[in-house]
């Protein structure tokens, strides 16, 4: 079985294999094959405003709803599913516990390559402390 035009086809197939296996090389070179985001969870608080599973998936809709509610309707109180009431505020409610954005929000956002518009307007507490000094 002779191969015709092997000089062109074999390099082509090597390029194909390189493309298919690219993620493996990329992660090996960066040394992050077994990297997982590390979230700093506040030690003094026990629960988030909603169950963890719900927050993990739906926090973006929740914040979007809050923004709409505060800016458009002027309603600033959120009643959680466990009937507790919270102020609808990123800075005063969420970041009251999760003070350092880089150790909480950014962990997963960078991991997933997500960009968001929160920080176009909001400062996070750590940033404000720096500014005060």
């Amino acid at each position: 079985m002779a191969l015709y035009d092997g000089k062109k086809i074999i390099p082509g197939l090597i390029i194909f294999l390189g493309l298919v296996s690219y993620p493996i090389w990329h992660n090996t070179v960066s040394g992050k094959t077994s990297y997982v985001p590390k979230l700093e969870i506040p030690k003094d608080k026990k629960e988030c405003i909603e169950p963890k599973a719900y927050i993990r998936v739906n926090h973006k809709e929740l914040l979007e709803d809050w923004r709409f509610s505060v800016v458009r309707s002027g309603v600033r109180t959120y009643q959680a599913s466990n009937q507790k009431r919270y102020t609808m505020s990123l800075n005063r409610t969420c970041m009251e516990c999760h003070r350092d954005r880089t150790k909480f929000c950014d962990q997963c956002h960078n991991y997933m390559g997500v960009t968001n518009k929160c920080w176009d307007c909001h400062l996070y507490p750590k940033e404000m402390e720096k500014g005060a000094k």
Partner: protein
Amino acid sequence: MFKTKRFWVSNFGFRASNLQGFKIMGLWYSVSAILLLTFLVVIGIEGMGLVSFFTIFIPYAALFLFVVGFLYRVLKWATSPVPFHIPTVSGQQRSLSWIKADNIDSPYTTGGVVKRLALDILLFRPLLKNEKVEMQAPQRLLFKPSVLLWFGAMAFHWSFLVILLRHLRFFLEPVPSTIVILQRVDSIFQGLIPVIYITDIIILVALGYLFVRRIIYPQVRYISLSSDYFVLLLILGIVLSGVLMRLIYKVDLVQVKEWAMAMLRLRPVAPKEVNLLFYIHLFFISLLVAYFPLSKLMHMPGIFLSPTRNLTNTSRNQRHINPWDYPVKTHTYEEYEEEFRDSMKEVGLPIEKG
């Protein structure tokens, strides 16, 4: 389209509408196959709890079949000799210096071939030559350019590529900034959350057109096989499950990436907290990938290996030697005369040598 009916009747002696009955069978086979496969994954996950089977074994097996099958098919093609230069051309061949040659439509250098292949692969130039034939007045045949297929194919393939590149964020750590920028450009019209990607909408419309086209045009329906419908429906299933996961039935993407990264470092762990749509999405992708080497999807490597597209049109100004030529056993007239000289002399046949 219905104007063409007369054309079909007069040329083939039957009505195009007669085709509808039996040639649509392929479509029903494909629809049933897709429904059956969806049923399979729903039963497998919900009923039997085969999570590891569907998220670890099947993706690995599909990837293995894809790579091995792909290499096998291409290497098998490579064993076929291409003895003749058979490029399809639609331009002036290079001949005399004062006749302007067309190096793209009738390439005579490797550079010309590269340009032509690049235009074929990146811009689908051959589809722009698509024409539709219409019979207008009784004896008047009209050829009109038809760019709809070109447009649909471009929209589909390029969106598919962008979507594929966007998905690299699940497999690469750190996520390259190019991927993040691509995502942002793709979601440039975003107003509210959830983000809607432009390519998601384009691919749905394009797939819809490519699918409907096979059903409404009798000519295309006549040549459509169940495998044609099947691939389209499979990709449609992948896109729909993906879009639904993005917009309505959300999954925890961090869990999905942790699953993908674990698969890549060969320490697989089944994903947690994902819904049925994720399993359907993944199963359909595995099917597409495993089916790839067996199907018409092999046009992806095939376009590079088409002798009608990748050869130079130099059949006359270069000598091409048949690659399977071997020394042929010959018996010349001189040898023949030597062998039969006496007998020939006897019956009085003219002889060249003494």
